[in-house]
């Protein structure tokens, strides 16, 4: 009646083992480390960098615990934070001779001290939130002038096509700084154009400028519209940052507006700070432009002379210059998706782009009209453009699916795709401040959270053992196992644990005991009604299960809602809350039953169970059941 088949015990033991293994890394703590990674897509961190770092440390007299190449970065671990700071300076001096054009990013980091065999199992400690262990803090400045310029640029285009549509003849439309200048033939045309602007472009205002025979209009953006553009730029940048940080896999970042043109980003528990900085700081936009293949351009390309009017010089990946037209065919705005992949014929790493309807149409037209010519795909990072590839157009490309190839490594293809996918910024921005927030408050918070969990746990277990005797002990063990599973799963998922998360952990334990109380009370009730001990255990678990299931599911519904719609600390709470409910269902019912079955199940003639006093009303006095 109360026996588990062997396979159920196997599940329990395996779960327990997994729980222990994945909880273990949390006990090793973290070592201060210095991390070196590449600052540019074109520079790779490899064994030569490792060698450089080792040499730099040796000459500075710093003794690292270890220096290893992990993925795309070099990490040097140290005993103390003092050594860490000293080492950072030394490495920075050795690796970055020219601070204006840094090739590497050198950052402070915390690295888990857990042994290699645990790391090999992908067992790492819980991610702690900014409130628990500090983290990195970035302040980003948004270039509002660029946002306005971009807006003016697009309005110029709209104005041009609108005037063509309305058949207003003009002698040229040109953007001049933050205003647009339209030259017109006569006063009448000037008047018509002015009216068009007032009617059709609510954001623009125009001023007549007449110099003798020349008639022109100077169009500028209205101050309130400019303010709106800036607000929107800031908002879009915040959204884009959100996307980028999500790609990084950081849970619960703080992304906050500060002042009129600044954004604060705080990343709690970030391991790869250099990478974070890199992704945040990049303002990658993609532009497709035609290559100028005229003889002057060729000459400029080869001799390095003056570039022809209306063109610009960009470098290809291998460093060769290329002259491309200033006119932009397509920008990253028309991009809906970017995925890394492999070319089916050459097996080269490529980036597959998907364009939106407008982009697809433009692309089709351009490729049809320019068969045999070269087209350059330029990636702009930190304001500097680099030609990713400049293929010859062989045929018209329709359907909006484009492949970028061009001597990329798999890593580069991944990075490029990530950069493009993370969305474009409304305006470029740069990191003007980068700080590491001290864990002083965090250590205190951890201690407090830890204390409240420990004391609460101990009091509950003590009470359960006194009140329910042996069954109370089983419940207590089940509760401990619940905590173990909770920590293990949180470590496994690498969800960020914040202070509200710790509170959720304490609450989860409080609520988890509910299931055991329900079961124990039920068993007592059955015993009170005179049922035999074995039958009482069976009925107790069976009947309580329906209640436990219903009540946990309803609690879970609330938890899922928090998870779906919450943000920041609320989400941190919800993650732990939801996982806590699931683990409590497993440990309180399945695991504690396993213990009870192991203890009592084998006994054929069980006379009594140790579940504390079972009081019977008809007897009027307490009857000991054990």
């Amino acid at each position, binding site marked *: 009646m109360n026996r588990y088949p062997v396979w159920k015990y196997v599940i329990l033991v395996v779960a327990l083992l997994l729980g222990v293994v994945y909880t273990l890394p949390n006990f090793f703590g973290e070592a201060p480390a210095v991390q070196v990674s590449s600052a540019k897509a074109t520079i790779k961190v490899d064994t030569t960098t490792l060698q450089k770092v080792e040499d730099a440390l040796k000459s500075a007299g710093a003794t690292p615990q270890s220096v290893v190449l992990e993925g795309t970065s070099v990490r040097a671990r140290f005993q103390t934070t003092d050594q860490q700071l000293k080492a950072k300076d030394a490495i920075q001096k050795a690796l970055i001779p020219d601070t204006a054009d840094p090739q590497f990013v050198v950052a402070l980091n915390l690295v888990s001290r857990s042994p290699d065999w645990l790391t090999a199992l992908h067992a790492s400690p819980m991610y702690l939130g900014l409130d628990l262990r500090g983290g990195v803090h970035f302040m980003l400045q948004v270039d509002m002038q660029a946002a306005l310029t971009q807006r003016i640029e697009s309005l110029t285009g709209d104005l041009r096509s609108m005037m063509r549509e309305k058949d207003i003849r003009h002698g040229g439309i040109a953007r001049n700084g933050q205003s647009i200048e339209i030259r017109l033939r006569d006063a009448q045309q000037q008047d018509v154009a002015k009216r068009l602007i007032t009617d059709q472009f609510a954001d623009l205002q125009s001023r007549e400028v007449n110099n003798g025979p020349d008639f022109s209009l100077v169009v500028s953006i209205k101050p309130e519209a400019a303010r709106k553009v800036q607000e929107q730029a800031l908002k879009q940048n915040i959204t884009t940052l959100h996307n980028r940080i999500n790609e990084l896999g950081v849970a619960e970042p703080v992304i*906050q507006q500060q002042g009129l043109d600044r954004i604060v980003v705080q990343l709690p528990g970030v391991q790869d700070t250099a990478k974070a900085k890199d992704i945040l700081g990049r303002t990658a936009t993609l532009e497709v432009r035609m290559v100028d293949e005229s003889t002057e351009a060729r000459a400029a390309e080869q001799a390095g002379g003056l570039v022809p009017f209306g063109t610009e010089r960009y470098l290809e990946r291998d460093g060769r210059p290329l002259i491309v037209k200033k006119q932009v065919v397509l920008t990253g705005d028309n991009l809906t998706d970017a995925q890394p992949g492999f070319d089916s014929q050459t097996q080269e790493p490529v980036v597959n782009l998907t364009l939106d309807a407008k982009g697809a149409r433009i692309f089709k037209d351009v490729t049809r009209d320019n068969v045999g010519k070269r087209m350059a795909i330029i990636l702009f990072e930190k304001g500097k453009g680099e030609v990713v590839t400049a293929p010859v157009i062989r045929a018209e490309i329709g359907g909006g699916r484009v492949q970028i190839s061009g001597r990329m490594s798999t890593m580069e293809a991944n990075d490029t795709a990530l950069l493009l996918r993370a969305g474009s910024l409304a305006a470029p921005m740069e990191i003007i401040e980068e700080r590491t927030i001290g864990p002083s408050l965090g250590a205190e918070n951890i201690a407090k959270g830890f204390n*409240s969990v420990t004391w*609460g746990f101990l009091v509950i277990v003590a009470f359960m053992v006194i009140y329910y005797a042996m069954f109370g002990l089983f419940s207590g063990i089940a509760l401990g196992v619940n905590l173990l599973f909770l920590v293990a799963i949180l470590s496994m998922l690498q969800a960020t644990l914040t202070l509200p998360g710790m509170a959720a952990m304490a609450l989860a334990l409080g609520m988890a005991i*509910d299931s055991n109380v329900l079961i124990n009370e039920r068993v007592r009730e059955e015993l009170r009604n005179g049922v035999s001990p074995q039958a009482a255990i069976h009925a107790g678990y069976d009947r309580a299960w329906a*209640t436990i299931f219903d009540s946990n599911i309803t609690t879970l519904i609330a938890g899922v809602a928090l998870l779906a719609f*919450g943000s920041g600390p609320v989400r941190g709470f919800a993650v732990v809350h939801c996982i806590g409910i699931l683990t409590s269902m497993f440990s309180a019912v399945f695991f504690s039953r396993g213990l009870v079955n192991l203890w009592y199940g084998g006994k054929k003639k069980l006379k009594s169970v140790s579940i504390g006093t*079972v009081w019977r009303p008809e007897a009027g006095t307490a009857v000991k059941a054990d």
Partner: protein
Amino acid sequence: MELFKIRKDIPFMRHALVLNAVSFVTFALAVFFLFSRGLHLSVEFTGGTLMEVSYSQPADLQKVRGTVATLGFGEVQVQNFGSARDVMIRLPAQKGVNSAQQSEKVLSALKANDPDVTLRRTEFVGPQVGDELAEDGLKALAFVVIGIMIYLAIRFEWKFAVSAIIANLHDVIIILGFFAFFQWEFSLAVLAAVLAVLGYSVNESVVIFDRIRENFRRYRKMNTVEVIDNAITSTISRTIITHGSTQIMVLSMLLFGGETLHYFAMALTIGICFGIYSSVFVAAAIAMWLGIQREDLIKPIKKDNDPNDENSGAVV
């Protein structure tokens, strides 16, 4: 040990009307205070001032925290920033006082303790949670309400679903009422606690409903009031013990969790107290007023049941 020795079912439902009136008054008061006083929202919601000060020596954060706390700005965050000598202070926005005045006040208070302190910068920060928070909060609430109602309606019956939700919202509103009345700081952590109570309180109602359903099946002679009374009586020991142990946890947070968890634990304490009360006197009573009966939970086997048969459940 056995704490509960109850010989007869306690007639909870006899007092249902009076207690319902009491809870209605409490509810109305909570709503009143919510509207008249409003919630004292924390810096996470309102935005505020960010100050960066620098000391010549490593700063004593506890002392700084203490000094700033005496100025009465509400929840203030004090953290090391960059190095041990630099300190970042976040102040919540205050009505009628601008960022500059606030930071001046803080700086002069800090200077009184240590003349060496210098102000690096002071800036206004936007709220950490955007406009969408209110929207998302409402969405979450709607999701919870609808989700739980559908689940309960399927597993039990619509009358239980309705009464559980009313009891549930009753608890949440009353917690908010407390926060409005005492002007306690309503932070994101408190919001999480309030939403957790949503799940927690319904949990309680479900346990009682479950027993009611079982009793209807088992005791065919009892009428609805007796069934409900028996259900509450036989689960009361579990109710008290469970809430007791959860409260122990919450109490431990209240005692050891420090300032950050203080109001979180407070919200949960109120939630737990009203959770017990509401599932007994609000949820069960409303289910009773809605006329819950045996037929709602147990499909009648014979169609020609005598409606006057007392086994078919009393109509209240």
